[in-house]
């Protein structure tokens, strides 16, 4: 294993633990917005699509890139907007 991979695995494991710790405290009434909010956070995949775009230079690659970009953008934008809509109603 390279040092980079080791560092990545460390980050992964610690993030999982942080995720457990943060989520355990959320009350049931907020579970639906939470699921939606977490859903929006995995929209970070759009950053990955952008990074991988830098190494793509074939026609097939461009097609895949387009689909991936559209998918990821829909996830991140829609996820945050719909969560905000839900939580806006909670304040009343």
């Amino acid at each position, binding site marked *: 294993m390279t040092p980079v991979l080791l560092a990545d695995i460390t980050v992964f494991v610690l993030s999982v633990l942080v995720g457990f710790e943060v989520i355990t405290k959320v009350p049931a009434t907020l579970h639906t917005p939470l699921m939606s909010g977490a859903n929006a956070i995995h929209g*970070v995949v759009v950053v990955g699509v952008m990074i991988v775009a830098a190494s793509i230079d074939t026609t097939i690659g461009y097609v895949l890139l387009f689909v991936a970009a559209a998918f990821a953008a829909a996830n991140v934008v829609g996820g945050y907007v719909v969560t*905000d809509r839900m939580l806006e109603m909670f304040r009343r």
Partner: protein
Amino acid sequence: MNTTTHLLYLGTAVCFVLGLHLMNSPATARRGNQLSAFGMAVAIALTVVVLIDEGTITRTAAVVLAIGVLVGSTAGLVAARRVKMTAMPQLVSLFNAVGGGAAALIAFGDALPGSTGRPTSTTLATFLDVLIGAVTFSGSLIAAGKLAGVVPGRPLTFAGGRLVNLLLGLTALTAGVLYTARGGLGALGILTGAALAVGVLATLPIGGADMPVVISLLNACTGTAVAMAGFVIGSTPLIIAGALVGAAGGILTKLMAVAMNRSLLNIVAGGFGTGDEQTVSATTAIGSVRAVTADDAALQLAYARKVVIVPGYGLAAAQAQHEVVELAQALAERGVDVSYGIHPVAGRMPGHMNVLLAEANAPYPLLKDLDEINPQFAATDVVLVVGANDVTNPAARRPGNAVSGMPILDVDKARSVIVVKRSLGHGYAGIDNELYTNPRTAMLFGDAKVVLTALITELQAYAVGR
């Protein structure tokens, strides 16, 4: 990647964690989500700067990327703005599908010949990314279809289905191991095809009522796939955010399964329960029940001192959240003490009922959770159960049946109970509800929306009569 970039990415990860933390309480939840969105915006802007700075992206790729993002953002924005609150679970499922799909495509983009391989890319991460991403993609589409009614909600099984699924799973694993050892797009293609089929076949046999748990599980899977994509392209923000969501979804899935008194294994095995509430004939083993008319029920409600409304899945399915709030307001205007008793899994997802009632402008302090409302039932004149079933079944207090041990709302302790329900059909536990044969219980049969509207009309008649 230079130090500044790295530190800024770390800052965005902090935003995600703090954002989730702020979602602990309704008062700060919205700010939490906005903080998380801010972190995301920074991460995206930062990546744009990095791309321009590195300058390795081809002009075509940049244009394709920009158009793709524009198309996707528009679609996401329109869907998020227009979706009805009752259709929330299927939208979350669709976002899971596209997120998982994008994660799998990243691995493909990275593995394509001609692409310059990244130093940290490992074939094992690619294998896991494609496997989890593809299963999540097709599985989430089926789950969304089931909730939207496009795919039948009942468990769809066929002879040998499990064997076929097992074989497909083995094919996917073999292709994945081959790819991990030797690489090659052929193996990756077979892996993808098999994984997509597994996603479909694994979700089809699961009943619609179990879908919320499955969506939560798929949410966790998408997070994990995104983390794997992070390993493939060596991106820390993807690893952190993906792992966070994987853990969050995992915990949430467990909480939901516990609240529904189901084991996760049992749910994933499928074949249990139904889509929407079954319309089993009223001639089940249950004893005699007492039916009332809307007229009688309205009279009883109008002259009660304390009323607790217990909304459930049937209310969400009938989209009657506005009617129930209107009824509560009408009662409150008459001086009746009205509150809502909300079970953690009422609705189509945990906490979904709170969202629906909040949408209909129910005052937040009137929404009581299980622990808060249970001691109050003894002092309650009338409990109005609207489309809730298993969460009110007193059989849960006894061992040895499908709902044993499940936390329930103690509605049978109230002086009288009115149950609004379409039929005597079973809930997803598939057993009779002993509440219905309780002498203090009256059944008011009909669609929640229709019945509640009738109750509101009857109440108005009483107001005029006085």
